[in-house]
């Protein structure tokens, strides 16, 4: 047996990971595991990662269109202390995401960024992509996910457009590996249509996003023109889940664990139910939808519930020509995260029911506390290599018309 430490111990440079630790150090094991699995040569797309847009809120509010609100917001951001970022409603749960500081990267990323040629978020996103083993990363905001519950619908319009403009100007221009789904101010349908017109043709805009935490019915006639516009562009419409602890149905849940488990699924279960039973896939057969960040276990549950009830009450959903589960399987796409892996047989069944080989897209949700890794798809024992390649990137390439040439470098 050799003693390798003859000249003393070789301690790791980072003994405790905290909010100051470089993303590349936090994810060093992920990069090593991606290399070991040969992901350098695989095309990998992360459909759902995040940045914390409020870190740049001083910049974002400068893009507000209304000159009075813009001035108010800029003064607030410059002078006001003790309040949340201008215009954002946020949610109580945001305080608890890191489990009391146990998961530091969820609290903040205060790492050094020396690069000045691009925005800090571009640098952080590059670090994440090249550590996780990702070629294209779709970046979503974080506190803005709650804007659909703002009591002033015009605030969603002002801030949504400002964010879209800022994203195009400061982030998307910095690296074409970074993609976005345009934030739609969905509570104001005409403004959502305007967002489609204004940003829909940007080369790094690969689709459109409804933040699901809202109480507007997705089947209302007011939205049909919007869906037609999106369908004509050939880019998908995503429903990005979120929670909202003020939802009366969650009023008795006192643990963030429980609220997070339910809230992130509940919103998309409701929108999906309305989407299917009102025949939206029949009305817009070329409109692809993507259901983001609700995990997967809810899908077979809802398929079974809707199918059973539909056969007894077909007259209440007369537009349907197929079973609800068939629309959910054939016209909807799903992202993986947070993939429920503690019951492998159930997961295998889910993959089968949603036809994962063609309908499932990898997502990490980095840097949130329940982020997933590409290696999780590589390590699944019940799907073949082609299915793994599809889920990790080729399904996304097909859905979003992306060039499936790997661009990451796992060896730097």
């Amino acid at each position: 047996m050799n003693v390798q430490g003859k000249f003393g111990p070789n301690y790791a440079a980072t003994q405790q990971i905290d909010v100051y630790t470089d993303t590349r150090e936090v994810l060093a094991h992920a990069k090593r595991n991606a290399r070991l699995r040969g992901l350098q040569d695989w095309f990998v797309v992360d459909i759902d990662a995040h940045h914390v847009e409020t870190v740049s809120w001083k910049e974002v509010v400068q893009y507000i269109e209304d000159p009075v609100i813009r001035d108010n917001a800029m003064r607030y951001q410059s002078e006001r202390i003790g309040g949340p970022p201008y215009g954002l409603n946020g949610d109580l749960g945001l305080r608890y995401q890191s489990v009391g500081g146990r998961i530091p990267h969820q609290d903040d990323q205060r790492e050094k960024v020396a690069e000045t040629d691009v925005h800090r978020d571009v640098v952080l996103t590059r670090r994440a992509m090249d550590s996780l083993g990702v070629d294209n990363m779709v970046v979503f905001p974080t506190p803005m996910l709650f804007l659909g519950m703002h009591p002033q619908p015009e605030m969603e319009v002002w801030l949504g457009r400002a964010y879209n403009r800022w994203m195009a100007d400061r982030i998307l221009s910095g690296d074409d590996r970074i993609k976005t789904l345009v934030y739609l101010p969905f509570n104001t349908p005409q403004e959502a249509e305007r967002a489609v017109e204004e940003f829909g043709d940007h080369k790094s805009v690969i689709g459109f996003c409804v933040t699901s935490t809202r109480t507007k019915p997705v089947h209302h006639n007011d939205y049909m023109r919007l869906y037609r516009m999106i369908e004509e562009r050939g880019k998908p419409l995503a429903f990005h889940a979120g929670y909202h602890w003020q939802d009366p149905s969650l009023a008795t849940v006192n643990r963030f664990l429980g609220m997070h488990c339910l809230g992130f699924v509940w919103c998309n279960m409701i929108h999906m139910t309305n989407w299917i039973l009102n025949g939206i896939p029949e009305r817009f057969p070329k409109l692809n939808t993507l259901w983001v960040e609700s995990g997967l276990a809810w899908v077979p549950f809802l398929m079974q519930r809707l199918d059973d009830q539909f056969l007894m009450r077909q007259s209440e959903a007369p537009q349907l020509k197929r079973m609800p589960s068939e629309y959910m399987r054939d016209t909807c796409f799903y992202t993986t995260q947070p993939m429920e892996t503690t019951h492998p047989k159930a997961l295998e069944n889910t993959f089968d029911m949603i036809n994962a080989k063609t309908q499932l897209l990898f997502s990490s949700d980095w840097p949130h506390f329940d982020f997933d890794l590409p290696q999780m798809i590589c390590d699944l024992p019940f799907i073949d290599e082609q299915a793994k390649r599809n889920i990790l990137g080729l399904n996304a390439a097909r859905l979003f018309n992306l060039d499936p040439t790997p661009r990451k470098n796992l060896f730097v």
Partner: protein
Amino acid sequence: MNEYSAGKVDDYQDGDRKVVLCGEAEVGVFRIAGEFYAWHNRCAHRAGPVCQGRLMKRVLEPVDADGQVRAQAYDECEDHIICPWHGYEFSIRTGRHPGNERVRLRKAELIVRDGEIYVRA
């Protein structure tokens, strides 16, 4: 399997942790209540850098004789290492997850010799 120095016994105060690079492997060495423990720096969940996480006491929720709860508490006798990736917690003494003891860390062999600590990996 090679043997790697993890420093001197005296380098460790009670409650200290040192993560040692051992070739391709990494091992976390902990000193708790005078005893040394060594675990591979790979979380049982997703192979995250578990030994580089925060050290915290186990959280308890005492239930009184009426079945009621009023406050949480720390178990001062149970030290946890918490994976910074996803928050999986493990007893530093046993390497086991407090909510499911089948989920556990991989132990590294630790030797104390002539006032020096070595780990095998």
